[in-house]
């Protein structure tokens, strides 16, 4: 975060000036306003964040800037000026010239932006060859330079590669390189890191920030993640339901927010200090309004704690400038009446539940897959994918154990073995002292099947789209042998809907009529249909919007408290893990590298990998000071893991271990203190000397102007 080029640049022409922009989409039935009365200014060298939940219109703004709204979209009011020129008055040829050379856009899915049939080098060289008509050799030289700039190793080799030969993080770097090839004045990034792992995300974000400084590019950074925006942007614009509700400098909006939606958003994300028992998250009540069902007056009115009937719903609300801060504006009528220092109103404290007996015990679990080395010839050489190498832990009744790790670390494989979809290669899993590691699901008895259930990640995929919600829950009841008649099962199904706080009418609805959060609740009801003792929740909230995440996470906690379920919470989001887990298990390449209570894992001493993970997670709190650790290189393939310690290829502490122990010997599990174990060769002195990655500075009463 750099200081804003504030007042001094006030007279300078902004790179991008969006003024009272309104965009609508026209369908056969009606006009759907997607963006209304939206204004934002991006000065040279400035990075502006655009934050909001899905459907709030932030991507539509970006498409509007690119003048790429499709046949149904139309700018119905306001203007978009690029360096003082109105984009809507430019001809198609002028626009084509600007796109890609003056304004570049980076999309969420890197693979979708790259041509899979063309070598990276040619795709990069095309940009200056088309826009600046430079020679082939000059373009190649430029491509090499930019590839080196985005910190990819061995640029020559990369230029000769096809996109599919690179990893997701490398692909996204190439997309960024391609955007930079033309040396654009404005870079639009639409959720550029959502498809990437946390440590890769951290590296890409750092790259974007550094390049922005080096090339002096202005940026419009679109994201739903407040933490990322804090790390990359100077200014911020919060959007809700097609409108900007608050804009201002990062510090002003984060620390002295003046719109109830911004406030509610911050209360619903797990920041350091939130706690599931003492300081629970506050979900925003109600649902996001559909674009054609927006309320009169303030769009946020029906969900706002400070709503005043007759005033907030009387007329359209304009943006109000605020005295404090630099160009800090809010779309709230009551911004000077509300006591902004007051704490959340309905945070309910709950008693901490004590974990009971050990329910699930995993001992030295190993799962290897054999894959044929060549697809053509069967039976020849086979390669072994070592998905789980040695997994040992136990989980107690009414305990939440978080399993943390990036993609490819083996968490999903473990879930499969536990559920019985795969059987273990060696080792043991015992569920209440019954070994189940070698019993496939079809051989398990109904009680065991009902006892271990799963909540899935993608809400849009978790329910069968062609069966009513009620039928799907009742089918689970039928299978688990609960209830002896259809009527009894229907009664139980309705009770389950009550349990997950869904109205009973939803029983007869089809899944497509439900929102993402509601679908996830049905998924939870289905998992708890047979009174499950162990529930594996595989990233249950990561695909949901921020304001819904809190509600679903709290629902899981509440059911767990009532039913004393053991929850295995698989996640890569360390914020939510710290908020709701009792114990945390960190996995890397099929190994448990660290395990302990949440406090132990989040405080030093760390396993070097945990340390890097913690540093990578963006936190939306200006008080947080993070130590900066960026992991180099890629996660090694599970088919060909490095010898010795699995993390040795990326570890920054490797030099502290004498000899080549890291490269030859698998480290033992070292117990640090009561239940806190780390798999590392580092000696105690080094471990004890580790500094905390995240420190909370005292909130400054008067932020620097």
């Amino acid at each position, binding site marked *: 975060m750099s200081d804003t080029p504030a007042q001094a640049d006030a007279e300078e022409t902004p790179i991008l000036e969006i003024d009272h922009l309104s965009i*609508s989409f*026209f369908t*056969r039935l*009606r*006009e759907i306003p997607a963006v209304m009365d939206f204004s934002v200014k991006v000065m040279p060298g400035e990075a502006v964040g655009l934050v909001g939940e899905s459907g709030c219109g932030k991507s539509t703004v970006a498409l509007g800037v690119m003048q790429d709204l499709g046949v149904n979209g*139309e700018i*119905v009011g306001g203007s978009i000026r690029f360096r003082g020129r109105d984009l809507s008055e430019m001809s198609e040829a002028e626009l084509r010239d600007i796109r890609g050379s003056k304004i570049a856009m980076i999309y969420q899915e890197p693979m979708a932006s790259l041509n899979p049939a063309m070598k990276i080098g040619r795709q990069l060289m095309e940009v200056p060859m088309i826009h600046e008509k430079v020679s082939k050799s000059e373009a190649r030289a430029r491509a090499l330079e930019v590839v080196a700039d985005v910190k990819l190793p061995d640029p020559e080799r990369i230029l000769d590669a096809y996109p599919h030969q690179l990893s997701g993080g490398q692909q996204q770097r190439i997309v960024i390189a391609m955007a930079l090839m033309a040396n654009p004045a404005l870079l639009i990034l639409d959720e550029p890191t959502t498809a990437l792992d946390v440590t890769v995300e951290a590296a890409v974000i750092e790259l974007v920030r550094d390049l922005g400084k080096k090339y002096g590019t202005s940026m419009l950074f679109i994201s739903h993640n407040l933490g990322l925006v804090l790390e990359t942007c100077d200014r911020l614009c919060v959007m809700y339901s097609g409108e900007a509700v608050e804009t201002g400098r990062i510090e002003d909006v984060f620390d002295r927010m003046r719109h109830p939606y911004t406030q509610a958003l911050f209360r619903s994300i797990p920041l350091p200090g939130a706690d599931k028992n003492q300081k629970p998250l506050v979900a925003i009540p109600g649902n996001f309004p559909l674009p054609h069902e927006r309320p009169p007056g303030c769009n946020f009115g029906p969900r706002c704690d400070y709503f005043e009937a007759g005033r907030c719903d009387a007329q359209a609300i304009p943006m109000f400038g605020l005295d404090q801060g630099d160009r800090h504006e809010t779309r709230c009528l009551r911004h000077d009446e509300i006591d902004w220092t007051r704490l959340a109103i309905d945070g309910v404290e709950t008693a901490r539940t004590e974990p009971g007996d050990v329910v699930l015990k995993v001992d030295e679990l190993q799962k290897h897959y054999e894959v044929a080395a060549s697809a053509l010839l069967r039976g020849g050489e086979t390669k072994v994918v070592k998905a789980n190498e040695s997994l040992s832990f136990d989980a107690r009744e009414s305990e939440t154990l978080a399993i943390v790790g990036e993609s490819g670390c083996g968490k999903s494989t473990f879930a499969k073995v536990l*559920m*019985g*979809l795969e059987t273990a290669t060696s080792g043991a899993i015992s569920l209440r002292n019954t070994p189940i590691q070698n019993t496939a*699901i*079809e051989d*398990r008895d*109904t009680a065991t*099947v*009902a006892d*271990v*259930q*799963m909540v*899935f*990640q*993608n809400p849009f*995929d*978790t*329910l*069968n*789209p*062609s*069966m009513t919600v009620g039928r799907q829950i009742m089918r*689970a009841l*039928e*299978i*688990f*042998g609960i209830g002896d008649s259809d009527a009894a099962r229907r009664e139980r199904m309705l009770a389950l809907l009550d349990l997950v706080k869904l109205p009973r009418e939803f029983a007869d609805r089809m899944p*497509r009529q439900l929102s993402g959060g509601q679908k996830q609740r049905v*998924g939870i009801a*289905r998992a708890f249909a*047979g009174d499950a003792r162990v529930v594996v929740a595989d990233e249950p909230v990561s695909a949901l919007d921020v304001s819904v995440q809190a509600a679903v996470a709290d629902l899981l906690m509440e059911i767990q408290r009532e039913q004393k379920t053991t929850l295995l919470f698989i996640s890569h989001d360390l914020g939510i893990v710290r908020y709701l887990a009792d114990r945390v298990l960190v996995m890397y390449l099929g190994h448990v590298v660290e395990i302990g209570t949440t406090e132990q894992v989040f405080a030093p001493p760390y396993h070097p990998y945990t340390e890097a993970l913690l540093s990578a997670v963006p936190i939306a709190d200006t008080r947080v000071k993070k130590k900066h650790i960026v992991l180099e290189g890629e996660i090694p393939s599970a088919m060909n893991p490095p010898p010795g310690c699995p993390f040795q290829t990326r570890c920054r502490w490797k030099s502290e271990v004498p000899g080549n122990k890291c490269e030859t010997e698998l480290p033992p599990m070292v117990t640090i203190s009561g239940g806190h174990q780390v798999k590392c060769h580092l000696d105690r002195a080094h471990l004890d000397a580790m500094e905390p990655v995240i420190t909370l500075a005292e909130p400054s009463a008067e932020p620097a102007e």
Partner: protein
Amino acid sequence: MEPLSWTGAFAPLVPVLWTALAAVAILALLRWIAGFFLSEGDTQTQSDGTLAVTRGPLEMLDLATWWALLAALAVVAIFVAGGAALAEGAGILGAMSRRLLPVWIALASTFALSLTFKRRLGLYGKLFDSTIGMIGFALVMFWVFAAFMGAFGLIVTHDPLGQSGAMKNELPGMPYTRMLGEVAEGSYPYYLLGGDNLGRDVFSRMIAGSWVVVQIAPMATAFAFMVGITLGLPAAYKGGRLDELLSFLANLILAFPVILLFYLLVTPEIVETGIPAYMAAVMFLFPIAFIAILLNSRYRTRPALNTPLLIAVIGGLGWVYLSLISERFGPLDILPQALDLFDIPGGILVVFVSVVFVNSPTVFRIVRGLAFDIKTRDYVAAAQTRGEGSWYIMLWEILPNARGPLIVDFCLRVGYTTILLGTLGFFGLGLPPESPDWGSTINDGRKLLAIYPHPAIVPALSLLSLVLGLNLLADGLREESLRD
């Protein structure tokens, strides 16, 4: 009696129709050329949220084309409606329109009902949002209604097999005489679309031919689908060796020349060996297996309901199956005559078997591809983790979610089957020689095509319009099902 002219009292309208059609063609060409020089009008948003387009020369041309097209359609509508009112007074077209009156009424009421309730009718209702889909549906339903009503003797004017020495190769609209100079009292006075080389009524044979198609094509396609689904789902879901084996078999069948296969199947020597009958015996097992597995996987947790249901369904379908395959003195003479519900003529059975045999590998491939994608969804994993059986997952979790593409493919495939039936008829394979089906009729008419084209053109156009209708219907369904 005077022969009927084509349009009778509406003759003055014919030049109007040609003028309108010529105008459409010329205006469309002009619009296309002008598009290179002129730019389109600006769109503007009005305060009520609607879009307004300023009228430039291009928009005027568009409008003129549209009006010319409407004028042409209006003349056609007058021919149909006026013809139904005036009957022979409006010439051949009028008389045909009057004969088809029940079809018009049925079509109009189907459309009126469907359009009224289209928001409550799911995918079927959405079809009525797409013009292409509606045109296709209208063409298909025209032939379906005509076939059924023709089968009940409503539309046909003469016996499709009845010959007349006087009517050989007579042109459309000729008055009917049984023998030269002999006027047949009480029978319909004209051969509306003329007579063929044996003096049979082409119009009646066209209607009767549609009945053959409507009877066989959808049923045979449905059987092909059941075979394809019952094999395609496990191939995709289980994968491995089973998949390799089944895919290889499918490729083997697809690699075999279809026409040669048909010739082989209907050769008397092959029929005598009983191969087609045995093939039928195997293929017709699939629907029973399909339905039984479908029900069992769904209700296996409730034995009190499941057992009687399965006994009833398997018993009932089994009886139909045995009646179907068992043939007196045929290779499979299993069922006692007293219990045999019906006999299918051997030729029809062969046609049926051939069509199912060549269509099911393609269906197999489509189902396999769809199931490969759907089996990775979380709801399939959810079903696995609650211990559902494989068949439940395949038939109740995967299959319903593949229905969109399968319905579209079904429509297209009924079209292919119709063409296939035409081909079989044209080569005289399977169906009896005097059969009025379109393929046989085209083959009959082919011999004198240069002199008397009408006996071949009528069934050819019928075949074309039905298949076109099915393809348009499939397009409309695809477009609308993608829109959700």
